[in-house]
């Protein structure tokens, strides 16, 4: 079982969040976070930052864009 210290845990927080670690490493980080307030706080911050980014990027495309794209394609096909 890999033992992650605080520095390693903080460095891997993104990979942990995005589920990019090997399952056993993912598990070890979970354990570390449960036992370490400082790392858990860092984790919470990254989670909140992700939430903030996601809520800020919620623009819908203009309504007619799909029609415009299809018209454009039909037009170039008939040329």
């Amino acid at each position: 079982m890999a033992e992650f210290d605080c520095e390693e845990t903080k460095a891997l927080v993104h990979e942990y969040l995005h589920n990019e670690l090997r399952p056993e490493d993912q598990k070890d980080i979970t354990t570390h976070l449960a036992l370490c307030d400082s790392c858990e706080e860092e984790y919470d911050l990254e989670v909140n930052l992700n939430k903030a980014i996601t809520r800020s990027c919620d623009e819908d495309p203009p309504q007619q864009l799909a029609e415009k794209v299809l018209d454009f394609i039909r037009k170039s096909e008939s040329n």
Partner: protein
Amino acid sequence: MSVVLDQAVTGRLLDSEPMTIQPSKATEDKIRDFEQQAIPLMPQLYGAALRWTRNPSDAEDLVQEAMAKAFVAWAQYQQGTNLKAWLYRIMTNTHINSYNKKAKDPSKGGLDDLEDWQLGDAKSLTATTSRSAELEALDNLPSEVIRKSLLEIPEEFRMVVYYAVVDGLPYAEIAEVMGTPVGTVMSRLHRGKKLLRALLAEYAREQGYLSTETNTEKS
């Protein structure tokens, strides 16, 4: 058949009423396939295009151009593989070729080699703020501020942050979309988020979202 027809009427009819020409059955099928599979992914493409171009009208143009290219290349798309990543990849190339000729500028090439201090080190900027205060400020910042701050970080970082965080693309797919190794995706994600955090902390401090560190401890 329609090709002969097209050639026969080239010019006059195309200018006035192009839609009266009947496309061939094969073309009809291709358009229908594309409409059913690719068009529903357009909102995601538009979201990414906004991050590339930084404004709605250029984003619209970029999506339209990328979709037109995707349609032309439609036969090359392998059914069953990740269509969204395939479309993103086309859009990346379209953007780099037509909207961002400067991408080949050697002075822009070394971004990943820069040290943190050259990019502005987030740690030193946020060090004066307690993390719990920063955490709270993040929840209270207006979306507009976060959106604008994201547009301020370098493009390569911004796109990786967008694809990983908003789109939830796995690193391997981001690497494919961006045409970089997975290691570069990782470091761009880390540094992009760090820069963004620094920008937001700075804004929060200026605007009084982070008044003083002791604030939370007084009560």
